[in-house]
């Protein structure tokens, strides 16, 4: 089918001091769903607008398959974009909205009717052809917008936070719908989102966009468990970093030596990271545990969040099984399981 290649894209806007895209490269395989994850203002939407041709890059190339798209007008690119809002044409009913792209291609009335019906089945909204957009809920509108995008058989589907304005429950079912339809039609898809859960739940690979470049790209579970850089780790919800000298399987941290996985490496300065749910809060000393003082306890339902001061640092621990209640200031131990400590690039 269609592979999408973004090649060293640069883009600046006159109103912004720093470039939005600073040499972004990305390779989306045919039939793959890649989530482009990044904080707001990181240029995620700009990437999609450049692929459709609504925006032009300052330099760099966009290729679909082997073909460069830069000199193809937007309406001939076959890259269909869905926005945060459905933007259904208010003056057309559902059938005419979905049939919009087909009509432009000169489809016959019968063809349109059957295709519209098929698409409405696909997005699980059969029989609403005659309704107008104003009569639909937000989730229904996005489903219709998805049908309208898919009916033209796009070479690549671009989703710009299509679910972020919906309620949590509807968002989750629509995530499943989009994922199912995308797999069924085997359509190359780029999903832009600022929601870590959404990126991880929906994508084959997740790309983290920071400062106009791809900071990290990997399968969601790999990116989540072992982010390669400190910035990526922070975005993945990691706040505990230990910097020190590695010697053998020992990390010499300011507050003592820690056992780490890996051995035989030549000594070097390194930063290690650990996910908050992998840290263990203990009330007695244990192997690879460091003494500290309990600062704060926040009960969160599924988990409890503990903040412990170790020396001058604050360490956050996420415990899914609550530890017996202890008053703030209690001396505690924080255990760093060696198998969960991993090195990150700073």
């Amino acid at each position, binding site marked *: 089918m269609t592979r999408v290649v973004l090649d060293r894209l640069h883009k600046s806007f006159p109103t912004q001091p720093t470039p939005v895209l600073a040499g972004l490269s990305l390779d989306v395989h045919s039939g793959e769903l890649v989530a482009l994850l990044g904080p707001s203002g990181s240029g995620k939407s700009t990437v999609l607008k450049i692929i*459709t*041709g*609504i925006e032009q890059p300052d330099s760099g190339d966009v290729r679909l398959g082997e073909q460069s798209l830069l000199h193809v*007008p*937007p*309406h*001939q*690119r076959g*890259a*269909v*974009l869905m*926005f945060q*809002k459905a*933007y259904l*044409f*208010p*003056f057309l009913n559902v059938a005419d909205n979905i049939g*919009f*792209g087909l009509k*432009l*291609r000169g489809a016959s009335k019968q063809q349109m009717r059957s295709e519209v019906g098929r698409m409405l089945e696909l997005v699980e909204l059969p029989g609403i052809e005659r309704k107008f957009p104003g009569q639909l809920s937000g989730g229904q509108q996005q489903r219709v917008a998805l049908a*309208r*995008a898919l009916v*033209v058989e796009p070479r690549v589907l*671009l989703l710009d936070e299509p679910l972020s304005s919906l309620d949590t429950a509807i968002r989750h079912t629509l995530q499943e719908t989009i994922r199912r339809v995308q797999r069924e039609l085997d359509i190359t898809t780029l999903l832009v989102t600022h929601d870590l859960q959404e990126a991880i739940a929906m994508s084959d690979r997740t790309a983290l966009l920071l400062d106009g470049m791809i900071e990290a790209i990997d399968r969601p579970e790999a990116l989540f468990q072992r982010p390669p850089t400190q910035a990526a780790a922070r975005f993945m919800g990691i706040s505990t970093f230990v910097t020190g000298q590695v010697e053998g399987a020992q990390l010499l941290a300011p507050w003592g030596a820690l056992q780490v996985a890996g051995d035989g490496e030549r000594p070097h300065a390194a930063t290690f990271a650990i996910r908050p749910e992998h840290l263990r809060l203990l009330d007695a000393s244990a192997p690879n545990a460091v003494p500290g003082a309990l600062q704060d306890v926040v009960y969160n339902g599924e988990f409890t969040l503990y903040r412990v001061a170790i020396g001058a640092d604050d360490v956050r621990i996420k415990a899914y099984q609550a530890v017996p209640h202890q008053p703030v200031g209690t001396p505690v131990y924080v255990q760093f399981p060696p198998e969960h400590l991993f090195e990150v690039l700073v």
Partner: protein
Amino acid sequence: MIRQFVWNIFLVLAGLLLFAPVVIFGLYGFSTRYFYPQLIPSYWSATTFLRQLTDARTRQALILSLEIGTVVSCLSLLVGYPAARTLGMRPFRGKSVVYMLLFVPTVVPPVATGIGLNILFLRTGLAGTVLGVALVHLVPVLPYVVFTLSSVFARYDPHYEYQALVLGASRVQVFWTVTLPLIFPGIVVATLFAFLISWSQYLLTFLIGGGQVITLPILLFSTVSGGNPQATAVLSLIFVAPVVVILIATSRYLATDRVHGQSGITL
């Protein structure tokens, strides 16, 4: 309660003020020998009205006014659309200055503009022509058209156009299938303004037309100075009728617009 009462009185007075002239024209236009102190005429007749209506000069003036109004509406939309779109949607330096300049024709006395342009139009051979009159009507018309449309575009979301574009519509197709239906109520209101302002233009027509372009207002003024109240009344009714018809036909666009569900006119 009291506020409601005062408001009602105000409405009645405003209504009287608007409708009283038309009623008086009706009384004069459809009667003969209607003199003071009669409150209502004793001899009703449609003769004056029919004579005036079938009069060649009246018909020519009526048709010419309609023609000029139509040409002015089309021209003003053609010129006003791009300007309004840019003003409404793009942020740029000096926008308020541009808006102020656009307002100037509505505050500068038309005599000044008219006489100034008369010199220019005489040199270019446009004075005394229908085209010249249509062009000079654009001076008071354009501000209204640009303001109406730019307020539409200020609330306009280009994402609908992007959506059509990526679904395979060329720029021209986007305009006809998406932009136009979305802003249609605004276009109707703008056209209405353009037509009505052109329709009621006397001074600029007089200055540029130089007595050779006889539109309905020109004919009306000469009839008024002729001193025949019946003829004046009938002509006035003919002058008012198309306006009322157009207003009724477009009233639903004046009340709401489909994109935003708000008032169509927000100046």
